[in-house]
């Protein structure tokens, strides 16, 4: 009997061992594949055309699968009719409009913050536009490419007007509320340590609890991205009684992301995003774009595809920018539709203005 028991435990151990070996083998396979493919593309830009390119997959499927957020006011949410709406979603619609001439040819796959990069790497989504900050680690280690930043955000602080706090230095000894597990928590610690300010931190699991605590007065200030602060200010019982400090604690460039290994697709997403900015610079909107079709300006003609083969070089129809502008609009239109003065947020353009107006949006020339 004892001998048999011994045999069983050996058997069990071997099952364990083989199972774990299997897991290790699987994960090894995954990572080596990944590095191999990314190496390939860095060496030869044409390798994407050999395999099944993302563009072909998207065309075959008939719609674009967009990894998005469905819980961020202004950027991605579900409206009463069950459709996705928002600033980030509209950039996905722009890609769909360029490929299919139909901005509704997208399927939004809501992703959690943890899940987003896995979903992108495994090809579950074609493009990730989910308020994702561009960082070195994400650009290299996570195997993603960042298309141009569509929204320059930064971390800010909100305080009560009557508290007399006007700058970060005044927050000495204050209690500051922050969401746990976010980069904002780390940024706050970094910045205050740099300035040598003592403060007490109170962490919250979600933003609703944080805002409620702030309104009840159990924290003196709270911090998150400035766009988030502005959108939340509108919902406070007395928005006028609060103020957002001018200082910005961190840089948060948010933009579309694609996986490495398909440079054609990366270029497509990149230049569609640039097209919305270029269109605003040239004053082309969804309403007047048809008037520009017979323009004499060669810059406009190239952008709209009347001249040159810019679209074909990307693997798109030559009038892709026309489609984007016609269906979705230029950058300014997208911004105003979701975040601008007519919305509850009333967010100033600030650094998200064109370079001609002192902002950071700068499209390379279309030629």
């Amino acid at each position, binding site marked *: 009997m004892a001998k048999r028991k011994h045999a*069983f435990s050996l*058997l*069990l151990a071997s*099952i364990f061992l083989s199972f774990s070996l299997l*897991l290790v083998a*699987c*994960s090894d396979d*995954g990572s080596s*594949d990944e590095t191999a493919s990314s190496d390939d593309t860095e060496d030869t830009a044409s390798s994407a055309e050999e395999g099944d390119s993302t563009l072909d997959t998207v065309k075959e499927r008939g719609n674009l699968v967009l990894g998005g957020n*469905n*819980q*961020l*006011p*202004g950027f*991605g*949410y*579900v*409206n*009463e*009719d*069950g*459709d996705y*709406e928002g600033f980030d979603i509209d950039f996905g619609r722009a890609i769909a409009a360029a490929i299919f001439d139909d901005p509704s040819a997208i*399927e*939004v*796959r*809501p*992703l*959690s913050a*943890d*899940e987003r990069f*896995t*979903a992108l*790497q*495994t*090809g*579950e989504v074609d493009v990730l536009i989910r308020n994702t900050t561009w960082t070195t680690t994400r650009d290299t280690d996570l195997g993603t490419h960042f298309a141009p930043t569509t929204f320059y955000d930064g971390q800010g602080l909100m305080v009560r007007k009557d508290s007399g706090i006007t700058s970060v230095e005044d927050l000495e000894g204050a209690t500051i509320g922050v969401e746990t597990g976010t980069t904002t928590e780390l940024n706050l610690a970094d910045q205050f340590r740099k300035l040598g300010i003592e403060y007490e931190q109170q962490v919250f699991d979600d933003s*609703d609890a944080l*805002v409620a605590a702030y309104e009840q007065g159990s924290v003196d200030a709270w911090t998150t991205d400035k766009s988030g602060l502005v*959108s*939340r200010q*509108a*919902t*406070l019982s007395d928005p006028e009684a609060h103020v957002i400090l001018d200082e910005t604690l961190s840089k948060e460039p948010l933009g579309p992301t694609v996986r490495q290994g398909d440079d054609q697709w990366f270029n497509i997403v990149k230049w569609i995003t640039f097209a919305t900015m270029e269109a605003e610079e040239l004053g082309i909107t969804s309403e007047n774009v048809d008037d520009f079709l017979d323009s004499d300006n060669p810059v406009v003609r190239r952008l709209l595809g009347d001249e040159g083969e810019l679209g074909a070089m990307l693997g798109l129809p030559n009038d892709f920018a026309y489609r984007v502008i016609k269906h979705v609009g230029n950058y300014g239109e997208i911004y105003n539709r979701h975040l601008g003065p007519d*919305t*509850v*947020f009333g967010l100033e353009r600030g650094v998200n203005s064109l370079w001609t107006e002192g902002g950071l949006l700068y499209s390379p020339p279309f030629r």
Partner: protein
Amino acid sequence: MKTNMETGTNLPTSSPPKSTIGILGWLKQNLFNNWYNSILTILSVLVLYFALKGTLTWVFTTAQWDIVADNFRLFMVGQFPVEEIWRIWLALSLVSLLFGLSAGIWRGTNLHLSVVLMGIYLIHILASFTSVNTKMWLGINIAILVVSFFTGPRIPKHKVVTILGWFLAFPITIFLVNGFGVLPEVSTNLWGGLLLTLLISIIAIVFAFPIGILLALGRTSKLPIIRYFCIFFIEFVRGIPLITVLFMAMLLLPLFLPEGIEINNVLRVMVACTLFTSAYMAENVRGGLQSIPNGQYEAAKAIGLNPIQSMTFIIMPQALRAVIPAIVGQSISMFKDTSLVAIVGLADILGIAQAVKSNPDYLGRIMEAYLFVALAYWVIAYSMSYASRRLEKQLGVGER
């Protein structure tokens, strides 16, 4: 009274003193029978008053329920395409029909549950925010419920038909919701709201039951490989929380799968929930098996039944009967646990609440949405536990 008896005279019986009968009497006896109880009563009433006042004032004046009213369809079926929504109504009609039939045939619990269903339909018909189309479908459902209740017992072989209907209802519903190419296919990405919550929990419960029985039998098996595999699986799953299983399904599984093979995320969650529940189900069933005295096994052997027969006809029926409360409890907790899928990005009823509260039109109304979700969970979970209590009584569980 006492004096009357002692003296033995037939005085006219007088009613007891007013202080001992009626509401006042009850109050005096139960709430104010001595000084400290009186103080406790007054304190509790005060606390209750302020708590209720706050709650009710908020519910009826401060709260803005339009977030629920305007997004009601989303809460119920998520982003299911409007033009295909008749399929869900059809599935619901089938459920109504079966409820009506069962209520007509067996009365009892089925009747009570049907009345609850009818009540829910009526509330939604009367509610101002439901569309005409919805009201029409609800009316049809009520009609089906009533008609099937009265005609049910007159249908030939009604019991067989109804039980068969319940078994078929599940695959038919899945077919209607998905379409499988016969009807236009609705991608699982669009399944949401209460529909998704119910689908995940029903699938988890329905599939976990047979898997759980097999695992329980495997764990008591004499074959070592089967036994150790079952023990390993059960103890492994029981040793980790559901949320880690879900994270594993969402984050790790896609990385392990060979390129080109993609398992749909809703399916992944359904499989994860099923496997998780089955481990618990197995332990429940094993508890039932252990409660069966050895004499039953021996008796089965003595009348010449082979192991499979004795398991099917003698042991299992008794074992399962003994663990009905545990199994129902597990089902209810699975139903509530489905809310965790909102964390991994699915739009179940809780996930929809989170998506809807991000609509700029309803910013800051999260309490209303969450309360509504809680109410929906409570109604369903309570109905389930009520049904199980009645079932226990009918089967006489715990009375022997």
